[in-house]
């Protein structure tokens, strides 16, 4: 076993109300991919931020090589040879892609930037990930997934000794993950230490050499991958018995749809210029309709259209078989629709408000300005959902921005569930969520579906999509290319349809 | 054939007080009466705006430029430019400090120092040279505030029995005049105050309210003298609440355009023309009030 390259001993970090890290030891070795695993809120991101000088650590020591280091900022960490991609996309929205990749390391002549060189370098960095973009466009003109790739391109564009990736793959599709892993392997073989955080177990077993597990800020242990089978890993992360976990894996089977009630929502020839080509779809009470497609295939845009965030410019929409319009989120809410956006940070949470307020806001909007939900009822609701979804928070009055990503997502889900919706549109609800919580959410979806909720489920994980959906709508280039139902709802046919092979028999939407 | 209409550019300071509005009205009315094409620009109390206005007068090719300067300094460059363009300049109301006196032809207006001096002298006569005075100063840094204070203090210097115990700016406004006077009256030594000197009538009128609210009789318990001579001041004098106002006459329109026409015609004019002004106290107020138009 080689010597540790980056090593932390006795690292402790306290936040008001939480001990995010409690005397954690951690060691990454050169030429090795080291996975950092744990549930939401276990302290993975905090560990990374302590290592790279974002947070000052309360106690502990960090060594790089044989040297003790005290980075006070990511800049110093990078100078010392640690390159990091932090969780969530942390780039500059208004700057161009090229600048985002080169910011802080631009080459200059006589103190002046060389824009041409910068663009070339950015294009090259993106090409390593198999991506061709117009690098002079501002970052915001690209989707979250592209942004995540840009962040990765930025991280690997620098010669570092240690590369840290905090959930870099949460928005990526298989092909992109494959490209990324090829690069990671190459870097590892060149002698770099790679630290990798993810909630995708498959990816861990595909790429990692060693795993460190954290739980509630405690170090659970460090294991070679071979010594830690999947179930063991999950058990360690969750702090349960392997038996318990095995029991958990039994998903409730999807109940077949009964009755011939009109669909909760049906659209025909529904689309928007330069955004989504006219589509036809119907979703019934008690079923989950999945949207499959590659990045940028238009799933999010279709969802926004259905929820009234963007307005359709053609086609008709029916609710319960009657013509209707949904021209704003307000109207959608009044129709008892719900929508959890994929971009949690900018479109989901109200960062400086409390968990309680974030949770009740949609219900409050539905009740109207004058009928304030009494505090007792609010507290009861919060208590109910915190318990039901297992939201980890120090209390209902905690600011939501201080929750880990997964727990934020659960709060937003609760926000809509509290309104007792008839149709729930979930855009990547399990992105960045740990296995336990993911199972929770999947179980909840099934439960509410069985109670008569109609669900539209967008997810880039085909397996997950297949597992949870009754029917699947496949989109490619912003147009509907197939609809799968019954036995066709399986990973193979989804991938087949996405890839654009001869589509399997796809029945037209609607009754 | 009709003679070409005289074009005059006038840059006014603003409309910061009733006095100033009356001044503007007088100038506009007189120009209209004489059939002069008046280019009027309001500077919103900013010197930089005035300079811009003067420059645009050059571009418009006016025959004569007149203006009431916001402050005394800072005119040298633009006046030189005007001179280069061959346009004569008449100052109204306030003076400017320039190294070259040929940069303007003449000035018509009041002498702020003299006004302050007259107020002080009147107060000395009224109180027999013994007074404990509170002073409401104008806007800090403004020419009237500086000069009126100077003149007033000159008059006091001759009367050792008179001293200023409180002095604070009321910004030439009623609201602040009242607020500052309220504060003056709450000091432990407020009982000693026997007189008030306000740099303009508006502040005096505000202060009168504060004095009344304190249960004192303005004009009796505290002798009040102010400057400007607006209508409200005369009304207050008639009501016995104000004792004296030193006139600063805003209605200079006729005199101003007499001068301008002479200047335009190339005639010789005196370097300084004083405005007809008086000092009015309670005894004359009732007789004068009907003649007050502003």
């Amino acid at each position, binding site marked *: 076993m080689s010597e540790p390259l980056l090593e932390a001993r006795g690292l402790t970090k306290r936040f008001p109300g939480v001990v995010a890290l409690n005397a954690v030891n951690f060691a990454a070795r050169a030429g090795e991919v080291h996975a950092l695993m744990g549930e939401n809120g276990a302290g993975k991101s905090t560990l990374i931020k302590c290592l790279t000088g974002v947070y000052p650590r309360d106690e502990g020591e960090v060594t790089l090589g044989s040297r003790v280091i005290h980075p006070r*900022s*990511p*800049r110093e960490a990078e100078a010392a040879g640690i390159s*990091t991609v*932090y969780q969530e996309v*942390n*780039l*500059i*929205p*208004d*700057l161009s892609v090229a600048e*985002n990749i080169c*910011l*802080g390391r*631009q080459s200059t002549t006589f*103190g*002046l*930037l060389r*824009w041409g060189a910068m663009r070339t370098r950015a294009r090259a960095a993106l090409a390593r990930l198999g991506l061709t973009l117009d690098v002079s*466009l*501002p970052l915001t003109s690209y989707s979250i997934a592209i942004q995540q790739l840009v962040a990765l391109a*930025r991280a690997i564009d620098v010669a570092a000794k240690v590369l840290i990736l905090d959930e870099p793959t949460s928005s990526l599709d298989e092909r992109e993950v494959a490209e990324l892993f090829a690069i990671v392997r190459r870097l590892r073989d060149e002698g770099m230490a790679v630290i990798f955080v993810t909630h995708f177990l498959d990816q861990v077993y595909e790429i990692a050499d060693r795993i460190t597990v954290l739980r509630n800020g405690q170090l659970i242990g460090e294991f070679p991958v071979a010594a830690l089978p999947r179930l063991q890993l999950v058990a360690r992360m969750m702090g349960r018995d392997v038996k318990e976990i095995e029991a958990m894996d039994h998903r409730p089977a999807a109940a077949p749809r009964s009755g011939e009630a009109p669909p909760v929502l049906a659209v025909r020839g529904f689309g928007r210029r330069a955004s989504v080509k006219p589509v036809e779809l119907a979703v019934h009470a008690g079923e989950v309709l999945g949207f499959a497609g590659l990045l940028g295939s238009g799933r999010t845009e279709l969802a926004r259209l259905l929820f009234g965030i963007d307005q359709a410019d053609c086609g008709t929409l029916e609710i319960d078989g009657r013509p209707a319009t949904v021209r704003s989120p307000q109207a959608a809410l009044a129709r008892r629709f719900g929508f959890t956006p994929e971009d949690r940070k900018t479109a989901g949470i109200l960062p400086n408000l409390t968990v309680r307020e974030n949770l009740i806001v949609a219900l409050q909007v539905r009740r109207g300005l004058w009928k304030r939900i009494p505090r007792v009822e609010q507290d009861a609701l919060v208590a109910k959902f915190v318990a039901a979804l297992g939201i980890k928070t120090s209390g209902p009055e905690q600011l939501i921005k201080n929750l880990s990503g997964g727990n934020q997502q659960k709060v937003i889900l609760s926000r809509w569930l509290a309104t007792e919706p008839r149709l729930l549109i979930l855009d990547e609800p399990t992105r960045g969520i740990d296995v336990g919580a993911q199972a929770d959410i999947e179980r909840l979806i099934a439960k509410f579906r069985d109670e008569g909720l109609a669900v539209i489920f967008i997810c880039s994980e085909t397996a997950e999509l297949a597992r949870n959906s009754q029917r699947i709508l496949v989109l490619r280039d912003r147009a509907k290319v197939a609809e799968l139902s019954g036995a066709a709802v399986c990973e193979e046919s989804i991938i087949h349809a996405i890839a654009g092979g001869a589509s399997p028999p796809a029945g037209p939407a609607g009754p | 054939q009709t003679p070409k209409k005289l074009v005059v550019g006038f840059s006014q300071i*603003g*409309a910061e007080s009733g006095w100033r509005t009356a001044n*503007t009205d007088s100038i*506009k009315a007189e120009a209209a009466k004489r059939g002069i094409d*008046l*280019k*009027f*620009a*309001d500077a*919103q109390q*900013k*010197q*930089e*705006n005035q*300079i*811009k*206005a003067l*420059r*645009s007068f050059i*571009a*418009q*090719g006016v*025959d004569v430029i007149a203006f009431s300067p916001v*402050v*005394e*300094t*800072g*005119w*040298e*460059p633009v006046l030189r430019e005007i001179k*280069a*363009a*061959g346009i004569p300049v008449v100052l109204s109301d306030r003076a400017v*400090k*320039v*190294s070259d006196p040929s940069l303007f032809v003449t000035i018509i207006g009041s002498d702020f120092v003299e006004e302050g001096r007259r107020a002080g002298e009147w107060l000395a006569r009224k109180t027999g040279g013994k007074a404990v005075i509170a002073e409401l100063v104008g806007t*800090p*840094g403004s020419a009237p505030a500086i000069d009126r204070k100077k003149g007033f203090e000159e008059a006091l210097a001759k009367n050792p029995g008179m001293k200023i115990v409180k002095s604070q700016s009321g910004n030439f406004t009623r609201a602040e005049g009242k607020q500052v006077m309220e504060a003056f009256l709450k000091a432990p030594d407020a009982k000693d105050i026997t007189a008030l000197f306000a740099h303009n009538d508006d502040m005096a009128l505000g202060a009168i309210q504060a004095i009344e609210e304190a249960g004192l009789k303005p004009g009796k318990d505290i002798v009040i003298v102010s400057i400007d001579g607006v209508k409200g001041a005369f009304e207050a004098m008639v009501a016995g609440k104000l004792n004296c106002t030193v006139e600063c006459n805003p209605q200079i329109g006729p005199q101003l355009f007499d001068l301008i026409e002479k200047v335009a015609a190339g005639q010789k004019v005196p370097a300084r023309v004083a405005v007809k002004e008086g000092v009015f106290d309670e005894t004359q107020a009732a007789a004068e009030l009907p003649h007050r138009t502003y």
Partner: protein
Amino acid sequence: MKFRVPAQLIPLAASAAVLVLLYAGGCLAFDGFTSPRVVINLFGDNAFVGVAAVGATFVILSGGIDLSVGAVVALTTISVAALLGHGVPPLAAVLLVLAGGAAFGAFLGFIIHWFELPPFLITLGGMFLARGLGFMVHPESLGITHPFYGETVGGLAIPVAHVTTASGRVQTLTLPFTAQCFLAVVLVASVAAKWTRFGRNVYAIGSSESSARLMGVPVGKTKILVYTLAGFLSALGGVVATFYMQSGNPASFVGLELDAIAAVVIGGTLLRGGVGFISGTLVGVLILGIIQTLINFKGDLNTWWTKIAIGGLLLVFIMLQQALSRRRRE
């Protein structure tokens, strides 16, 4: 590849279009508006606002705001006048106040960064401080009579055009030194904003401070530097104002910061930071200037109609800009 105006350039282009429209309108409506004097005055008369506004642009790009501009300009003018009055050589006086302005800005920036306080409040405090200090330096306006000002600076003007005056004399029009300073500052600042690391860091911080920190941008250093630069440029604006008026006055330039901010925003820079151009500020300053020129040429507005007209033109302008940028984005 299809040609397309980059989205970020649209507001700037719209502002420039409006500027041209306003100028053309003035030429049609008024005699004498076509005179080259009008254009020269536009640059010369607005030079000090412009210089200060460039500083404000950096601050706004970085996501902050600077309310101390007017007070610092006033403090600078009176300080220069007082220093010259005490026999300090002009160049030394100018250098001294520039250093003072930079130090003042650095002080504000330091507090804003170090204690994580809102720039609005701290620079408001700075405004009061500078205003009071100005009156402490000298409580009333002071003329500057030093020959350096009259002759040396005056001699730096560049002849650009000839006009015939009403009396038939041919006169040479010059671009005053103040305007040259303004244009030079715009040029240097544009380069600094677009072509230096510092400039790009400013944009990055304004767009997303937390991301910028994680990406290794020296946030604290950049922020302090931005306010230092703003203080320096405010002081330079003050120096330009002394060239312009040859006097100092502690009570002057009240509300100049709002003019500066308005110019920046009209120039297409977003107040939230991260988006905008220095050249936009140039356009913004010229638009505010031309609005005033139009009112002066109109020549019959009294105080209140002047105010209403300024407000109205500002509104018309903003609507036009919005309409143009919306049309172009479609």
